[in-house]
């Protein structure tokens, strides 16, 4: 899930602080160049400008969100994308932590429940799971819980689906994190009289979570991208808005380039932050 290119060097420097042509992040220049070009197009070209304003959601997003200040500023489309990602990721963290703990449990029953969930989700394409969760699982479950199946908005269904899907991925991240903490830590804790839960909670988990923070960051970026899939539920996130704009104006190039621009600026910003953070972690570890 990680697989990031890692460099110990300050951007564009060799180990001695001099400019280093081979180590310079030309890729970043190229990407930022693309982003600047898109920005200029949006500012100057009326077709791009219209596409941008439509997709970011100035013209009718979902009721309720329109009025809130932040959505008014960044646009309802972008707001839906961001808040879908944030909520789904937060829920996925909780599911993932529980499933990850179940995965390493010594209780055969608990462990097999966790493995069943994880393998089930990993064996089915994300898009298929979104349909299945939204239309097959949510209605009967919500009825069991006492809501009518129709009262759950498509956006909520999308969030539920993404949470369940990413919960399985994050479970594996947490499991790897827990296993990365040496057994000696648990043994030292147990030999001091801590019980199994206390050792997990106070000794193993804090170190496991610290070890997987970069991996969690990468999964957050992946979640931001995969949030585009909930457009198939007709949720008006930026992807859906781009499809609507392209469909009504036939401005495919403008619509999808602006959409690409929006995702890329968010993911690049996050990924640069993550690189910086990982570098800081490595320096602190020394």
């Amino acid at each position: 899930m990680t697989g990031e290119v890692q460099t110990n060097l300050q951007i564009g420097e060799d180990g001695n602080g001099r400019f280093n042509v081979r180590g310079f992040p030309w890729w970043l220049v190229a990407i930022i160049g693309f982003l600047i070009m898109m920005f200029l197009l949006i500012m100057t070209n009326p077709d791009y400008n219209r596409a941008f304003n439509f997709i970011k959601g100035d013209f009718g997003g979902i009721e309720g969100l329109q009025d809130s200040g932040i959505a008014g500023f960044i646009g309802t489309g972008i707001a839906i994308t961001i808040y879908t990602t944030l909520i789904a990721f937060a829920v996925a963290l909780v599911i993932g932590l529980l499933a990850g703990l179940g995965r390493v449990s010594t209780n055969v029953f608990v462990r097999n429940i966790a493995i069943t969930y994880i393998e089930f989700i990993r064996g089915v394409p994300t898009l298929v799971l979104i349909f299945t969760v939204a239309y097959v699982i949510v209605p009967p479950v919500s009825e069991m819980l006492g809501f009518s199946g129709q009262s759950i908005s498509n956006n909520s269904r999308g969030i539920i689906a993404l949470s369940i899907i990413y919960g399985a991925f994050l479970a594996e991240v947490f499991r790897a994190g827990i296993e990365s903490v040496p057994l000696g830590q648990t043994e030292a804790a147990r030999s001091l009289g801590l019980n199994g839960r206390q050792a997990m909670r106070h000794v193993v988990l804090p170190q496991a979570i610290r070890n997987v923070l970069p991996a969690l960051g990468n999964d957050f970026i992946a979640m931001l991208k995969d949030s585009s899939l909930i457009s198939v539920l007709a949720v008006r996130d930026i992807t859906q808005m781009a499809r609507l704009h392209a469909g009504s104006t036939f401005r495919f190039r403008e619509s999808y380039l602006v959409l690409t621009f929006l995702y890329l600026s968010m993911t690049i910003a996050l990924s640069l932050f993550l690189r910086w953070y990982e570098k800081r972690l490595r320096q602190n570890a020394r």
Partner: protein
Amino acid sequence: MHDNSSDGVQTRPGHVLGDDIIVIKNIYKVFGNVMAVCGFSLNVRQGEVVVVVGPSGSGKSTVLRCINHLEVPTEGAIYVDGIHLEDEKTNINAVRAEVGMVFQQFNLFGHLSVLENITLAQRLVRKRTTQEAERVAMEQLERVGIPEKARAFPRQLSGGQQQRVAIARSLAMNPKIMLFDEPTSALDPEMIKEVLDVMLDLARGGMTMVVVTHEMGFARSAADRVVFMDQGCVVETASPRTLFNDPQHERTKLFLSKIISH
């Protein structure tokens, strides 16, 4: 078995041993198809210091780990302070709080400061307030000679300092027994003495100790008895002077000749 008469009194003046606090009755431990321990018995009296020596793989660590139930013997029984460890009704966490363990690799909690390392189990297991736990922690840090490192993190300490913190962490629980598994084997030579000094001090203070070590100097000055193990069994047990100067078994002689030669 308790031939700690002359040597024991001489090296540890005024030292009185109490009743048996550890009773190991004929334990066996099998890992897959490896017999790590086969028929090991040992009684340790209150206040006694027992040093266990033997070649690598002879089952020393396994025996030590059985004493605080990190390993469960395949057969046999262990009683610590009269409590049967292998009994399902035994609250093993309560027993472990009374038995400190010091590991070769220190095993300090990397995400916690030195002070937090020492207060964690006091608060969770002994239910002491943070204030009380910190007071005890500082006392123990003084005892091992590094009170100034209370706010440091383990990775900022030398190996010798880390091991002394690990000892302080165990002592802060006020254990009745301390187990040491090769506490100086992972240390650079210049740091061995600072750790052994702390252990010697502890032995002189009357702590019951079972120590796996190849530090013969420590064994000579602190041990009431030395147990020589080979292939999962006790080969011979004697006072350090007798065992080192006049070993009875060929295997003991062979082993001693190897470790004394370097």
